[in-house]
């Protein structure tokens, strides 16, 4: 039987990705003084918040042995709907010309509802028709994107209210709002996954779906809820994203699902189900953000950045699999 003995190897295996993050930060700080400014750190946090929030939901999805390819599109659709309800009176091309300025809560709730609804459709399809998550969410990817283009007629929606701008660009106690919202969602998701029955059952569904069913877990309901939560987070992410740019356009966040999946995966969540943590998704998102930020500061061309990112994802998973293989 295995003993839980203290060893550097164990520590490194468990927290290896944290060491990588720290190492990256230290090296960058030495190489470029402009990297280690407070402003830049807040900048990194803000940059990572949008796909970071998606990665939180993706963690639940992947622990349950699923995948959600549609989050980028859901984000886009939620964003244009929220933006259309959040335009200021001074907007030159108002989506609803006869409507006054609405309180910020209305577009926010609209985004969360649209996101949750799309997620619920994903979850419903997966739970009740039994089609693979890959297929259901692949379908949703183009459907949601299509609706976003129809809704906006392909045009961006801009000139939003100051309140909306505050969500994306404001600060509380010197911390940018997107980072604040990200932090809140980290805590909520962490508690949800670790301290509720729901969370325990997410692991059970991914760990062994048949055993979960026999143990009285309502597997269909679980799948439905997991994807709905993912959709909700896409809606939240949409609000943050719209606020940052003070506008939304229907092509927004294309490919963000991949960044979210990458963050989750780098953070050690296993695609074979049952294994994963919220902090892993956060660290994964930060690794990507620091890497992008650092490479930009170092003057590495964005084309090359993409290549490096791809390599990092693959290497992270190889290391993770080796770790699991050795334990067998």
């Amino acid at each position, binding site marked *: *039987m295995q003993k839980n003995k203290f060893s550097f190897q164990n520590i490194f295996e468990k927290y290896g990705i944290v060491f990588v993050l720290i190492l990256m930060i230290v090296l960058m700080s030495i190489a470029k003084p402009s990297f280690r400014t407070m402003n830049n750190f807040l900048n990194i946090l803000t940059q990572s918040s949008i796909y970071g929030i998606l990665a939180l939901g993706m963690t639940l999805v992947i622990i349950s042995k699923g995948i959600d390819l549609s989050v980028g599109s859901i984000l886009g659709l939620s964003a244009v709907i929220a933006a259309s309800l959040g335009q200021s009176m001074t907007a030159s091309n108002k989506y609803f010309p006869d409507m006054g300025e609405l309180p910020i809560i209305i577009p926010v709730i609209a985004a969360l509802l649209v996101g949750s609804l799309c997620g619920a459709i994903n979850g419903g399809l997966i739970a009740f028709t039994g089609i693979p998550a890959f297929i259901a969410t692949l379908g949703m990817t183009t459907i949601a994107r299509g609706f976003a283009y129809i809704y906006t007629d392909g045009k961006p929606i801009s000139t939003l209210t100051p309140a909306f701008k505050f969500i994306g660009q404001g600060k509380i106690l010197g911390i940018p709002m997107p980072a604040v919202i990200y932090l809140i969602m980290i805590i909520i998701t962490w508690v949800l996954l670790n*301290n509720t*029955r729901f969370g325990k059952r997410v692991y*059970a569904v991914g760990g*062994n779906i048949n055993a979960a069913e026999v143990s009285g877990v309502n597997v269909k309901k679980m799948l439905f809820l997991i994807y709905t939560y993912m959709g909700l987070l896409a809606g939240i992410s949409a609000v943050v994203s719209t606020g940052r740019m003070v506008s939304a356009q229907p092509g927004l966040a294309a490919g963000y699902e991949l960044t979210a999946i990458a963050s989750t995966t780098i953070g050690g969540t296993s695609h074979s189900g049952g294994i994963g943590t919220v902090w892993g998704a956060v660290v994964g998102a930060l690794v990507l953000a620091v890497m992008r930020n650092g490479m930009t500061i170092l003057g590495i061309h964005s084309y090359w950045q993409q290549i490096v990112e791809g390599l990092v994802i693959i290497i992270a998973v190889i290391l993770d699999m080796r770790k699991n293989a050795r334990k067998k």
Partner: protein
Amino acid sequence: MDNDNYLLRMVNIDKSFPGVQALKGVNLNVGYGEVHALVGENGAGKSTLMKCLIGIYSPNGGEIYFDGKKIENYTTAQALQMGISMIHQELSPILYRPIMENLWLGREPINKFGFVDHKQMYKQSLDVLKEIELDEDPRTLMANLTVAKMQMVEIAKAISYNAKLIIMDEPSSALTEHEEEQLFKIIRKLKESGTSVIYISHRLSEIISIADKVTVMRDGRDVGTENIENISLDQIITMMIGRTMDEMYPKLKVNIGEPILQVKNLSHRKYFKNVSFEVRRGEIFGIAGLIGAGRTEVIETIFGIRPKSEGEILINGKPVEINSPRDAIANRMGFLTEDRRATGIFSVLGVDVNMAIPNYDRFVTKFGFVNERAVSESCMKFVNEIQIKTPSLTQKIQNLSGGNQQKVLMARWLMTEPDILFLDEPTRGIDVGAKAEIYKLITMLAAEGKCIVMVSSELPEILGMSDRIMVMHEGRVTAILDNGPDITQEVIMRYATGTENDFKEEYRGIYAKE
């Protein structure tokens, strides 16, 4: 002993896994052109031994000699090259590719440009298929073959590797009688050409008719090797079981109370018809029958895993509607499933989560959060009470031995405080020590006044534990017997086979499931 007399000599093989010693000094000698049967109860170590032989596991101790040479540290691929081939119990053909591609997988003939030479492949395939008299076009998809024919293809593959030794793990379990004869014909032909066969089977009667020698294994040791003409079926069984009933089954005297669970005319569209029985407080109710008799399906239907087509279930005299395991749990039922890996454990999750998963409802605070301390305390109580050997509560369950995994699953259901506990093959694949502990636990639960419904393919277990025994045959109940000295394996088998005189048949049933 002279190495030259044997094709294979396995000497003093040891193999241990975390928590279990699976093989303890096992010896196995197989001569040239010999059909050597390997028998033993589930978990006796047959498969482990074979996996050591073909290079899936490497033994912790002992030596292996093959064809006069000592062999060690080899892979399965190297074993194949040396001439050791295994036909696994669970076939893994590539279903939607043709026979010939399955035959030559990994060593496809190529032409001078480096492309796969389909013509050559086809021709070679024809030759091999002819050798085993399988009349199929090599271009037929595997998916279109019967299981028996797929097995023939596997044998053809082994032959095409020029195997000197072919291991067959339960080759006949999926075959009809006619197909079985065909298989035996091939085995005899292999033997004539000097190829040796290790034949693993639970069907003792067929071993008598095909094997030259038999080695019996029990609890990770070899209990003996005999020439087949010098040994009877009964002697083989005694060697396999090897212990008296009393040591194994510590039955307590329990006062049986009123009926708790009543099942009336329960039917399933496909698996069984008109099943009626009742189980009383403190009673252990055994369900026996051959594979496919519908035993597991009956209790799965009661528990809401399968939909019933007809019938009624009453608990304490009141009819209940059970449409899902959730309903069953709400009605204070628990269900230990037959296949621990497939429907029991969450292998990558901790012992605590594995135990608590159906029970979180009772561990939540009024704000909806899980009270982790209460969970740990409750889990710890069971770990101590039923002596689960685990270094910690958060240990992944996959690192525990089979017996301890099973105890965790028992604890899972005990935590739900059930009145009715269904146990489907409760001791499958666990070692003898753990078995005895599980039996003790079951007995104690009955003494506490729970109803136990136990499905088992091991007749000694059914006879040793049950107060009453229901026997099923092809989806129908053929008997409900009060257990007693006059109830023997023979009696049960008569009902289980639905015949009176086909004595040999009955051994097929008892040991026909791995």
